[in-house]
């Protein structure tokens, strides 16, 4: 354990503490985004480059845009200083003491847990068709624990539907008062970054089979390109989704379930892939998932079912 780790851990805690304690909402959000970026650095340090990519793209990037956009969309009386706690002092002390006990118990428990060598991880590393993908995390996501990944994408779709139902589209709220589209910086940023983002996103999806990367990281970068275009008024909202958009939204889940169901007679189990085709199926699922994830994340930002291009 060296100085770098100690400093990173200390900074993580300090940032989280400041983020929750400062009264100014804007500063709180900025601190949270910085916390996310530092967390991405921590994942890279802890031998988890897949997570570092995902955290930087989804945790700090997409979530940061959503948080700042929501801050902007809140009316001015609500976005400034947040009131300090309305709880009586006694209850606050009680909550602090309870949280401290919880943290202490967790630290103690984590310290006591032994590092065993016969967990599910060893089993996964031994049994997965690694030659087909070569990347253990992608293989675990798309084969070993495919139920998790399938349900996760379903949760993402549910969140999109929930956002539509809340009827508070973020992009429309921003355009009513926002002047970013008219600054001279925006067209240049779009021309420079949108193509780079699209290529980077596509590369990350492709790379997921061999090196860190994958449908979620790549999809988030692709969604970021969409968010940039939407902020620059090249992509607008529409009240209704066309059939093509709806199909692309559910395509990943459909292909995932379809691959699992179609091979059931041959394999006698849902989502069991024959060894010869495992690599091909995982690639197919990964690419279609990336399209659906990118669209879902973009629609979480725009907040309305439809998208339309705006020629400028």
């Amino acid at each position, binding site marked *: 354990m060296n100085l770098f780790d100690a400093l990173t851990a200390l900074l993580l805690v300090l940032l989280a503490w400041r983020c929750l304690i400062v009264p100014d909402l804007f500063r709180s959000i900025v601190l949270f985004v910085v916390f996310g970026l530092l967390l991405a650095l921590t994942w890279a340090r802890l031998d988890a480059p897949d997570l570092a990519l995902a955290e930087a793209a989804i*945790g700090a990037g997409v979530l940061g845009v959503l948080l700042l956009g929501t801050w902007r969309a809140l009316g001015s009386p609500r976005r400034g200083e947040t009131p300090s706690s309305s709880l009586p002092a006694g209850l606050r002390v009680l909550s602090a003491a309870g949280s401290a006990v919880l943290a202490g118990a967790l630290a103690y428990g*984590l310290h006591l847990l032994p590092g065993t060598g016969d967990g599910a*991880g060893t089993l996964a590393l031994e049994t997965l068709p690694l030659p087909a993908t070569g990347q253990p995390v992608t293989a675990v996501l798309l084969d070993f624990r495919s139920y998790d990944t399938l349900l996760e994408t379903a949760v993402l779709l549910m969140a999109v539907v929930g956002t539509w139902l809340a009827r508070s589209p973020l992009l429309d709220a921003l355009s009513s008062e926002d002047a970013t589209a008219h600054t001279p910086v925006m067209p240049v940023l779009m021309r420079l970054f949108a193509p780079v983002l699209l290529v980077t996103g596509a590369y990350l999806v492709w790379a997921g089979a061999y090196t860190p990367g994958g449908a979620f990281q790549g999809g988030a970068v692709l969604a970021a390109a969409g968010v940039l275009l939407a902020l620059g008024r090249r992509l607008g909202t529409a009240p209704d989704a066309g059939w093509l958009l709806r199909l692309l939204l559910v395509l990943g889940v459909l292909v995932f379930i379809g691959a699992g169901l179609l091979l059931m007679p041959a394999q006698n189990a849902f989502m069991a892939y024959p060894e010869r085709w495992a690599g091909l199926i995982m690639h197919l699922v990964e690419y279609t998932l990336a399209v659906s994830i990118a669209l879902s994340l973009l629609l979480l930002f725009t907040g309305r079912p439809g998208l339309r291009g705006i020629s400028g």
Partner: protein
Amino acid sequence: MMGLDVYAIAAAVLVGLGFHGLITQPHPLKRLLAVNVVGNGVFLALIVLARRLPDGPDPIPHAMVLTGIVIAVSATAFGLALVRRQARDAEERDD
């Protein structure tokens, strides 16, 4: 058994901090941030455990945390939509 792992302590403190924030902060957006801090603490704990496998990091907690990050963002995005809706309704009531 490795000695005292600073990341394990940081994970525990993050969970505690976030939990306290969730209880005491009145603003809904701040509460969402607090829930995310708790989540990130749990992720950190999982990744610390993943390193204890002797032959390379355990891919299962990594995949679980990747799933968790996406779910956390989906849930937070939905929460933010509700926060915006609540603010809009409150404004309409005031007018």
